[in-house]
């Protein structure tokens, strides 16, 4: 709790980001109380511009854009969440194995990872999606995006683990007889968690971008509301040429809002967790707290987990 309050005070970008992200999740929760079913057509009057009754207007199919948007947001975040879970899962595992075991395994895995990083992912994804056309659900989409996004995280975790392994406290725990499993889970994991948080956010951004792109190309499950399919159908029914911009403006606006919100949160988070700024903050704190606490306790914070 203390950390969160600190974070709010420390970083304005985290403050704004957190507000936007909270707003987005509020919209997702609202979607469960929608008066319409997600795929209801002709539920409301058609082609209504935004008004008090229909906050974001209605489509040519008689759908309320605002409620559509809440469903779309929920599904897009679901896809992104699944992709992040799989991508980071594989990435963390490979990175840790490669970093801890070292030697030939490390060399093989690293050269595999370096090769996969170069391969452009979008054409591959388009190839897979076009072959699976019509059988793609949003869950498969999340799975696929996740399976294509593990190389860069695994490289990052490997370098993190390599630097952690060489720290002094690792040797201390090795010499005092801790098992490898215990060292990894108790001594190293606390260092990796902040890093993981920032990484998860960037995974989210990547997955949302890919979901939108694939849906717009008409390659995902077009019957499910997502931000991408909402733009796809808006284009399909010529929203721009018939002067119904609100149908397109809503999903475009919300996707910009979502990614910016997530990004600001991650920027704030990672600059807060950056060891250098962290040390600076600790110094300020220990100067303030000199009469109350022992200075050694605060300065060793970075070493003892």
């Amino acid at each position, binding site marked *: 709790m203390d950390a969160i309050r600190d974070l709010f005070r420390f970083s304005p*970008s985290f403050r704004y980001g957190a507000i936007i992200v909270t707003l987005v999740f509020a919209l997702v929760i609202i979607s469960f109380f929608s008066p319409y079913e997600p795929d209801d057509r002709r539920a409301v009057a058609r082609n209504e511009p935004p008004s008090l009754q229909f906050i974001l207007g209605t489509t040519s199919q008689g759908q309320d854009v605002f409620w559509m948007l809440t469903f779309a947001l929920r599904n897009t975040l679901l896809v992104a969440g699944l992709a992040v879970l799989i991508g980071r899962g594989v990435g963390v595992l490979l990175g840790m194995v490669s970093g801890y075991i070292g030697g030939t395994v490390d060399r093989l895995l690293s*050269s*595999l990872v*370096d*090769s*996969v*990083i*170069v*391969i*452009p*992912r*979008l*054409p*591959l994804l*388009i*190839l*897979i999606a*076009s*072959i*699976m*056309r019509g*059988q793609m659900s949003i869950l498969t989409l999340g799975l696929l995006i996740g399976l294509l996004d593990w190389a860069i995280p695994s490289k990052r975790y490997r370098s993190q683990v390599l630097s952690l392994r060489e720290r002094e406290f690792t040797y201390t725990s090795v010499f005092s007889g801790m098992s490898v499993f215990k060292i990894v889970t108790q001594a190293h994991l606390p260092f990796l968690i902040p890093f993981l948080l920032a990484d998860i956010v960037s995974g989210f*951004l990547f997955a*949302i*971008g890919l979901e*939108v*792109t694939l849906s*717009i*190309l*008409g*390659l995902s499950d077009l019957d499910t509301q997502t931000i991408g399919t909402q*733009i796809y159908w808006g284009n399909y029914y010529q929203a*721009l040429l018939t002067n119904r*911009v609100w149908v*397109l403006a809503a999903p*475009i606006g919300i*996707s*910009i809002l979502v*990614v*910016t919100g*997530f*990004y*600001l949160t991650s*920027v704030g988070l990672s600059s807060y967790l950056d060891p250098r700024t962290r040390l600076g903050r600790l110094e300020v704190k220990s100067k303030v707290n000199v009469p109350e606490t022992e200075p050694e306790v605060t300065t060793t914070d970075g070493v003892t987990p």
Partner: protein
Amino acid sequence: MKLTRAEQLTHTGANLQVRFSRVILSSEGYSTVTLFKEFVLPRLVQWVVVIVIGVTITFMIPRLSPVNPVDQALGRMTTFQTMNPEATQALRETFLDLYGLEGNIFDQYLNFWRRLLVGDLGPSFTSFPTPVMQIIGNSVGWTIGLLGISTFVSWLLGLILGSLAGYFSNHWWSQLLEKILITVYPIPYYILAFVLLMIFTYYLPLFPLVGGARGTPGFTWEYIGSILYFGFLPALSLIIGAVAFRFIMSKALTTSEKSSDYVQYAELAALPKRKILFSYVTRNTMLPQVTDLALSLGALFEGALITEVVFGYPGLGYTLFNAVNSADYNVIMGITLLSIVGIATASLLVDLSYPLFDPRVRYR
């Protein structure tokens, strides 16, 4: 070249680390042979590995999928007309041959490589006898042109703006620029391109909606001018995203470089700020930027694919989009393969050009 005393000292400071490593390297007998063995060879091996992995993945994907492309193609053809069983069987065999699905999976794999090495990607299905190679050949030039120009411009612009904003970080314009670009950076390529399209072709019709050029191809001012005119908006949408990324990275590097001793010394010696920034600081931050360019080429290429679809630009992305809509697997596979090989090769070339920027090699 005459240098003042202060400049000489600063120069020494800036290259101290570089000189250190040069001493170490030259004591080990740093020569062209070691350069090749330690630097070029691993990268060449990596390049081969990338291509083998890419080709294998592209080979496996259609075969692992639950959908049989042959049955699907047959289904499409027999929807609107009835055929007698013999004709259907003959058609099926033709399709098996076309897709390279004859024999066991190992034979197929070898065949796939054999055809690939002579540059045979099979015929396109929608415009039947035309080979995929020819279809790709018609569009690849547009993509390379668009991608090349936007990569170069965005790299340079991002580097310069980032260095300026990092060095003069207290000015209002630097903070404003950072806020704007940080907001722009995470926006997906498609959204950015689409918003630009809406603004500049619909609300303010300054630029054309679709196409790559007007008039007959040739080296005339008119034709080249129209290429630039049609390519402006697609390039702009790519450049904005890429500049934002390069800016953030360059600013971070410059900020950390700014606290170096040699910069402080140069400031104390009252060297002109412009000289400190561009002669010393930026040159030191450029090295990681070159390596990173090799890695980010793939992302830029993906951006180009999407941008082309939005603007109807006649490059690879647009061809891919059309192929997806008409389920032309051979074209999709061809473009996927080509993009993997192309990006891997481009990254290799950027990577290999690294010694040109690295003072350790140039100084010798």
